[in-house]
């Protein structure tokens, strides 16, 4: 993307205030963030699709990894399931195929499934999905590629505008788990939160933003 185009895009809110870019801007090792505007396919709860938008609204530049980029939202077809998965998988595959690491932000957990299939296509092998709350039974080596699953429904109710459960993790605990999860994180999905829709970002949006930042930093370094 040329300088003139970049200047035009500077006014668009982006994840963590990182530059906005396209597929052709990606370099190996870069962290590519994309919104996932779909919340009706897997564990559906209306409103989860707005998380990416809310996170962009409350993002401020300055704290993001220098190597990160906001690709916009992946194209979705939530009313046509097969077409939807095919499209999302191919888009994720295109991103991962550049050698960049990818974060899918918002929506329901269906994005995680698509990301897993795309990673398998690119690497030629199954890439284990590791939940920051549950972990996996195996203890992957530092070089083992993994996909990080960050389910924001695991946050305790006190962090939510509309809590659904009392117990759970604090954002700080979740961030500590993100840092400590073993393996080489090649992709991540952050999902499961239907944020309050305001223009300042309520507690859960700010918590999710801090978690997104931790995930982006983790992807930038790959292994812990």
């Amino acid at each position, binding site marked *: 993307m040329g300088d003139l185009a970049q200047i035009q895009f500077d006014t668009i809110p982006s994840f963590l205030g990182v530059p906005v870019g396209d597929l052709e801007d990606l370099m190996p090792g870069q962290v590519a963030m994309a919104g996932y505007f779909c919340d009706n396919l897997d564990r559906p709860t209306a409103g989860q699709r707005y998380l990416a938008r809310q996170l962009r609204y409350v993002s401020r530049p300055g704290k993001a990894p220098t190597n990160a980029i906001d690709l916009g939202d992946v194209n979705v077809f939530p009313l046509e399931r097969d077409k939807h998965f095919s499209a999302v998988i191919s888009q994720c595959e295109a991103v991962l195929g550049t050698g960049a690491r990818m974060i899918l932000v918002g929506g329901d957990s269906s994005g995680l499934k698509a990301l897993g299939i795309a990673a398998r296509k690119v690497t030629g092998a199954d890439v284990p999905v590791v939940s920051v709350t549950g972990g996996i039974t195996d203890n992957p080596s530092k070089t083992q590629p993994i996909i990080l699953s960050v389910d924001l429904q695991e946050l*305790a*109710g*006190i962090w*939510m*505008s*509309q*809590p*659904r*459960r*009392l*117990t759970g993790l604090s954002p700080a605990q979740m961030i500590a788990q993100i840092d400590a999860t073993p393996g080489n994180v090649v992709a991540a999905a952050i999902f499961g939160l239907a944020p309050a829709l305001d223009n300042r970002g309520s507690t859960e949006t700010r918590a999710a933003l801090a978690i997104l930042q931790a995930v982006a930093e983790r992807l930038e370094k790959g292994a812990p």
Partner: protein
Amino acid sequence: MNNVQKRLMMAGYAGLPFGEFSQCVAGSVGVLGVPSEVDSGPRVGASLAPDALRRMSQQLGIDLPANGRDLGNLDLSGDWPGVLTQLVTQMVDDDIVPVVLGGASDVASAVLQALPDLPVVAAMPLARGDVAARPENTIWVGLNGGQPADVWDQISQRTMAWRTARQLDEGHTDFSGMPECAVLWIDISVIDLGHAAGAVGLNPGGMKPETLVSVIGAMACSWQAIVITGLAPARDTRGMSELAAIETLNAALRNG
């Protein structure tokens, strides 16, 4: 119409079918709303609690760990405390556990009147003289430092078990002399306002919602009746107070 809307129309509290007392079977629960209102003070709204609890439990898709019926709300015209006392007596006689959703504290008074010989486990910030005066010792959960002197003397003389919110938060959750059967009264004012604002009483330094759930859930006691009072849902736009009440009730029924 989505599933939540359908559920709201077809089912009562936590997905239980609406029904009559006669449809309850032995070993099940009968959920009854009693929307009485506090008669003084600035923090009113307890009458909204039964329906707010039904709505919240359905939105969350929570199921009770027990079968039963939702008996709807009690008609508060006339001598409703007398009617409530009689209904609770009948239910307990038929081995049905009444789960009474208040309402103000007068709801619990009517329930306790129906079961005068049973001990009470009372989660509330201030001990009450009428409860302390019952023949069986009461177990007090979450008392704060502002107890009336005469009630406190009564509790001390009869060596009743009690724990403050801080003691419970620090893990002192063992209660000596836990009865096998008791009535459980949860006044939502036992929770710290900073954690859940939907209570009719102010209780700074009160319990955390999750502590209340874990303490009640750990009590190996067969609850003969459960009553929840003091919930003012309109004062808590986040719904933490309803969530605390629902999770505490589920924890009690799961273990008791």
